[in-house]
């Protein structure tokens, strides 16, 4: 019986149990902490595709200060950013650039489609130079409707994104 207890298989079981407990103890809080960090530190890339950029700019102004949520809009380089807010209509000339920007950003990255034009093409759905929505180009996390969406709507969109990040599994 003693032999059985000290056999290598049992030791392996013990070790795996131990590592299981360790992983259980570390993974959940670590994932929670990193997700918490991602939730409160969303830096959008400076890519303006159309007229919604006016409202996007207004959202960082004193009245709708999005820095409250940890969103800083002043980043120049897309390498430091983790959020694209597609600000309105995406034309056929802009579409390859949008995809290029998305590809160059580091993981994890999120996309908010802001405005009716970014969602479906909106008012310009029958124009010859406008894409019917950006979800054919980049994977969209949150759709923010409106033409243009008010800054409050945009803030609500980012809060929905935060909810989504909280629920997501960390890689």
């Amino acid at each position, binding site marked *: 019986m003693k032999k059985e207890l000290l056999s290598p298989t049992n030791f392996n079981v013990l070790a795996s149990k131990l590592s299981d407990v360790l992983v259980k103890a570390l993974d959940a809080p670590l994932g929670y902490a990193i997700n918490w960090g991602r939730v*409160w530190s969303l830096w959008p890339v400076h890519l303006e595709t159309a007229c919604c950029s006016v409202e996007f700019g207004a959202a960082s102004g004193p009245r709708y200060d999005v*820095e409250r949520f940890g969103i800083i809009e002043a980043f*120049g380089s897309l390498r*430091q950013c983790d959020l694209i807010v597609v600000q309105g209509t995406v034309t056929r000339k802009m579409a390859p650039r949008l995809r290029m920007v998305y590809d160059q950003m*580091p993981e994890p990255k999120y996309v908010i489609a802001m405005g009716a034009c970014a969602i479906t093409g909106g008012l310009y759905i029958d124009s010859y130079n406008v894409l019917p929505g950006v979800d054919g180009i980049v994977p969209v996390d949150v759709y923010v409707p409106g033409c243009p969406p008010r800054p409050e709507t945009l803030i609500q969109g980012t809060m929905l994104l935060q909810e989504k990040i909280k629920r997501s599994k960390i890689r």
Partner: protein
Amino acid sequence: MASHPQDFRFGGFVVSLIWLIFWILVIVALVGLPLIFIILFYVPLPEVDGEVLTPYLFLTSILYPQSAIPVIETLLDTTLFKVAVFPGFTYAALIAAATIFIERKFLAKMQLRVGPLYAGKIEGILQLLADGLKLLSKEIIIPSGSDKLIFWAAPIAFVATAAAVVALIPAAPGWVVADIDVGLLAVFAILGFFPLIALLFSWASNSKYPFIGGLRALHQLIAFEIPFILSALSVVILSGTLNLTEVVESQIQSYWFIFFLPISAFVFYISSLAELERIPFDLPEAEAEIVAGWLTETSGMIYGLLQLGSYIKTYALAALFVILFLGGWAGPQIFPAEIIPESTEAVIPVGELYEQTDANAVFWFTLKTFGVIMLMLLPRGISPRIRIDILLHTGWYKLIVLAFINMFVALALIYGGVLGPGGLLVR
């Protein structure tokens, strides 16, 4: 195997922790402790204050904390503690973190906003933690065609260089990592590495905007190095030493040097803004012109490290300003002789580690440093970015001349017998 973060519950977390502690205790008791005792049997134990450091002492100090004091005091005297904790890295990093947070709130208030608010419930106090955690978990992109060795090494070198400057800064009498006789000279020697790192990094990025940013950094830092050194030189003339601790002591003997050398202090302030690439002089990172300057290709923790390094540098230069012009740790004695009256019989022996003068010095030094840091943050809210030709012109022509003017003033003070050994104003 790994549980989903979605199911994260505090109860489960505690249970798993207790399990973990249980297993650790079992293993330590069964394996660790016997092993330690076997080793200790053969190894000669260190002696502190005539008392042999045995494992029993540690166990005793749980019940009688006073007995651990000599050990802690020895620990405080080691270089490792100084490098890692108090005047060294941890202290500087804490001040840097506080600086970033204060900068964001201060700037927001100046712009009629509130700044970070929700991360960490109370006024967004954990905003920096969130940013740090996110940057830690971010992917790091190495541009194709880049010089990988330099690209990886540069951020570490940047932080290390910034920390090396911090090592030379005395925070209180005796509290300095490297108390060398050419302290001031060494500070400038180390500061000279920063443009090199910026240029190397920008070249290694294999991209156009970083390259322009790196060249700008080189131009700017070289243009401001000379007025920077010249403005500190007049302090050296007045104090007669290059040792930073002695510089402070000579100010304690007379008056703060900012009263004699206001122009030098101004030149030093402007030059340190330029050294730090802060806003009127943030040409190497000018967003609207060259995307993010030499930081364009940085991502994830590389960016985080560079930011940390630059804010540690901010602390170092602010502390240098305090030491050179604001009398260092000099200040009225406001701390009482004993922090807890009759603490000799108290269970927690803070009183014996507490030294009146040191606490006072650290307090005043930190306070003044924060004051100078606030002064360095201020231009970001009220000033646009300067252009490179104006900047170079300012550095090479105006500031050097100003620094020379005050150097002559310093010389006149020395030879006029006002300051210096046996001077009029020397107490």
